């Protein structure tokens, strides 16, 4: 036997089957890679829009044998990877028809599977008819024994390491700060850093990542291209939402991070479905308090080097992606519910999310009981600003797209959030808003000012509020949830959006021009509220390095606003206030 793995536990079997089902829903080919430590299954959609990868550790299986040295047939699937320590690892990879694999991996109706085993025998003992066949043997409780041997095609494993890149970036941006003694980091977050860094260093395919020394120097200011955000939240929160979304009704999902809440909305983009008009323009959203989310790191600040444009308001961080694959993916977690946990394996059933800008892929990851599931999904790019998804909630965008778009852009969620925010707002906030130049501009729904206001109380220091200048607070990861209070609500497109917006705006009417003007006048610095003035490692950051890495969420924009407000003497409460866009 070149390879043999068996599962006897029902829960694990369920997890295995479900995983295969989800992979098969993405592509009609599933690729498997076997190493001595794990099996990786992945499939990528033919248009490269989604990639799902499942990693089952060897401990997940009740039996696991991998003997690559015996393989004489189908050796084109063999491959040797050398890790950073110089050890060689043999891998065997192949591609198999997804439909066939699901056919043999499904729960029988009236029977129970006692043992499910996979094997490959490409050794010299292999009979000719079984070369390059995946031998699937299933023993049933009824003692019926089923054996299948679907054909596979040996291939080379060409890993897609986007997830590692994200994690690398995540560590670069947030991780280094995490060890500052001055900050109290959420222990969960620290654990997360440790785990991610371990994963990075252990990965077989990290060469390109680890070798590059261009890890950010501590002093290099963060740029918008460094943006990476991380959220960890309870699986159940997402699942509850997803369970209510019918794939037949909703097309897209929007994930929004506001100052104090995270909102997920499922909606239908098109107002036309079939020949019916506007029948199905629905949306459904769940909003949860950020306090209910696990630890998170949100990329707040970027220097506003981009020309005069600096003054944009921050929008909430908003991402839009397709529901279908996401829903399937979330379903995997359900099958893990009762999976037995081995010592080495982790742990809770949390969902981790990494994302950068709109338009860049979003990474979801779940990890439990020796299985890790990852989903990479493309997100809608905001470039066009006209799209609903455009996250650029900022006034500019809206202005620029005077009409429909803006209105669309204001998804129900936002409205909701706004309204909610308003409730919380204090009078002072209102005042502050009124004072802010933005407000005028920001007649649009999601008023930028909110963000401004959002300065979290925590950010005492944050307030370098100079108009036109952004405060750059040194990016620091504020671990404590308290910090989160800071402006999550703002729209996330920090600086770049401005640029983009400009382009768009050009096309647009006078309105735009005016708006732009206004904006330019009012620049809000992105203050990171480092609770302490960026005392530590990156003193430079304070100066003007806008990197704000707050665990705290998105509110950096708010920070800017906050800064201003702070200047105006607005208290910590402002942070809460900012939301009242309508005001």
């Amino acid at each position, binding site marked *: *036997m070149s390879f043999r793995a068996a599962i006897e536990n029902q829960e694990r079997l369920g997890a295995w089957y479900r995983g295969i089902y989800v992979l098969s829903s993405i592509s009609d080919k599933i690729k498997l890679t076997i190493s001595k430590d794990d099996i990786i299954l992945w499939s990528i959609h033919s248009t490269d829009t989604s990639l799902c990868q499942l990693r089952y550790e060897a401990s997940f299986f*009740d*039996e696991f*044998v991998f003997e690559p040295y015996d393989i004489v047939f189908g050796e084109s699937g063999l491959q040797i990877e050398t890790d950073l320590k110089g050890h060689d690892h043999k891998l065997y990879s192949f591609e198999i*028809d997804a*439909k*066939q694999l699901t*056919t*043999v991996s*499904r729960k*029988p*109706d*009236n*029977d129970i599977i006692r043992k499910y085993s996979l094997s490959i025998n490409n*050794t*010299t*003992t292999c*009979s000719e*008819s*079984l070369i390059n*066949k995946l031998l699937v*043997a299933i*023993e*049933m409780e*009824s*003692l*019926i*024994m*089923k*054996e*299948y*041997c*679907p*054909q596979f095609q040996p291939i080379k494993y060409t890993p897609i390491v986007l997830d590692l890149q994200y994690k690398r970036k995540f560590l670069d941006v947030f991780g280094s700060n995490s060890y500052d003694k001055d900050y109290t980091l959420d222990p969960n977050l620290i654990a997360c850093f440790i785990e991610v860094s371990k994963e990075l260093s252990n990965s077989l395919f990290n060469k390109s990542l680890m070798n590059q020394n261009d890890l950010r120097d501590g002093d290099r200011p963060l740029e918008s291209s460094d943006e990476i955000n991380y959220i960890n939240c309870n699986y159940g929160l997402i699942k509850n939402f997803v369970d209510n979304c019918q794939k037949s009704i909703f097309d897209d999902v929007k994930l929004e991070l506001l100052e104090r809440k995270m909102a997920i909305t499922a909606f239908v983009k098109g107002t036309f479905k079939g020949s019916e008009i506007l029948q199905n323009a629905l949306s459904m959203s769940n909003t949860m308090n950020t306090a209910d989310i696990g630890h998170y790191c949100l990329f707040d600040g970027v220097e506003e080097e981009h020309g005069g444009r600096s003054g944009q308001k921050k929008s909430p961080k908003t991402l839009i992606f397709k529901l279908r694959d996401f829903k399937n993916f979330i379903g995997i977690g359900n099958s893990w519910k009762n999976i037995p946990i081995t010592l080495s394996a982790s742990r809770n059933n949390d969902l981790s999310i990494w994302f950068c800008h709109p338009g860049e892929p979003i990474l979801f990851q779940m990890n439990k009981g020796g299985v890790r599931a990852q989903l990479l999904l493309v997100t809608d790019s905001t470039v066009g600003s006209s799209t609903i998804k455009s996250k650029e909630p900022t006034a500019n965008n809206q202005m620029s797209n005077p009409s429909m778009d803006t209105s669309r852009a204001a998804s129900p969620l936002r409205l909701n959030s706004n309204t909610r925010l308003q409730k919380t707002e204090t009078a002072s906030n209102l005042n502050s808003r009124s004072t802010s130049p933005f407000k005028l501009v920001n007649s649009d729904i999601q008023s930028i000012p909110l963000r401004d206001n959002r300065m979290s109380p925590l950010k005492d220091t944050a307030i370098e509020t100079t108009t036109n200048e952004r405060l750059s607070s040194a990016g620091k990861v504020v671990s404590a949830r308290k910090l989160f209070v800071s402006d999550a609500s703002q729209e996330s497109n920090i600086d770049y959006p401005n640029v983009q917006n400009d382009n768009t705006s050009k096309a647009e009417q006078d309105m735009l021009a005016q708006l732009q003007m206004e904006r330019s006048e009012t620049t809000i610095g992105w203050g990171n509220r480092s609770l302490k003035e960026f005392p530590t490692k990156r003193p430079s950051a304070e100066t003007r390095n806008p990197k704000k890495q707050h665990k705290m969420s998105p509110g950096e924009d708010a920070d800017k606003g906050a800064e201003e407000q702070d200047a105006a003497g607005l208290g910590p409460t402002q942070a809460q206030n900012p939301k009242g866009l309508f005001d």
Partner: protein
Amino acid sequence: MGTFVASTVHLEHFTTALNCLTPFGLKDDVLIYIDRDGLSFVRENNHVIKIQLLLSKELFTSYQYPDEEEFGDERVDADGDLQSCMKLCVKINHLLDSVNIMSKNVDDIVECTLTYDGHGSPFILIFEDSFIEERVEYSTLLFNDFDSNVNGLQLAKDEIVFECIIKGDTLYNALKELKEIGCKQCYLYAKTSETGHESVFAIIAKSDLGFSKIILPNNRSIIEKLEIYKGDSTTLLYDTPVVGFFDFNSIDKIRLSVKIASKVLFRMDAQQVLSVNILSQTEDVLVSKPRNDPATNNTTVKQPQLPRDYPGIVIEICMFAKEALDSLAQQDIELLMETTNTKKNREINYISSRTTMEDKPFAPNHNAETHSESDTDEELHITNSVPLFF
């Protein structure tokens, strides 16, 4: 007069039986023989597969068969004797629809009376409950006479090659599996060993997946009998596999019948005719599971029990093999099964070692041991066979 009259209250059972005929052509004519023992339904497709289903007269509360002399029809019964009978043709779906509708009446007991007056008269069903009487007449026309002797679709009982008695539910699971994997052709494989421990009865499916094997448990409680003969129905042969090659569509036609079976008897003769006898003993019948639960519950309460002496539905299906396998193909299949056998033996060892350890917790070490042993065996094997390969 020469009128056949029979009445029953077991409509649900009647429906279950008729359902077994549907795979053979729902909208086609079924030939009904009425004789002293009961009603036989016969249906044949393309002269390659034939079903014969007997509803014994014990199912009917009254069964009145006219004097034999009045009818000229004769048929050969199972014992080879000529027997007088009445013959008629009706469409299966007509009959089924009528019965089906009435059997759904769970609030009341419906009595169904069948009458037939001989050639030229309609076949009449009368349904009666406490309030309503319904009468359904089917005109009959005998234009199709399936004569098993003429087309040879009959098992040569003195040339049997293998014989196997297997539990219905297990076989049903296997057949269902065939359907689910999209089987196109299938093979029946049987092999016996003198000790019986290594006997194998398996269904091999050829589908998009390549060859898949479904090995039925070699277990006295499931395979009650598995014997291979030298072609004379008497001399036992061991260690010689027998393979029958069938079109999946043919094999799949027995699935619905197997579903209600308690036992299934497979017999294949040297001419590659497979006969499947299905016996559904009343107490074992899973009476039409798909029926909604409340109905079944009510039924158990209200519907009368089937008569004690009722032997159950008896079905015989005969089919031709798709083609005789040439020796090469046969070898392929044998080779395919051999790869299983070794593995299966291993599993048996594994299981027996496990059962001997019953009370002790199963030590993972042991597990590993078993496998390492087998691995070493295999390695030995490898070294032996290497020269063959190169």
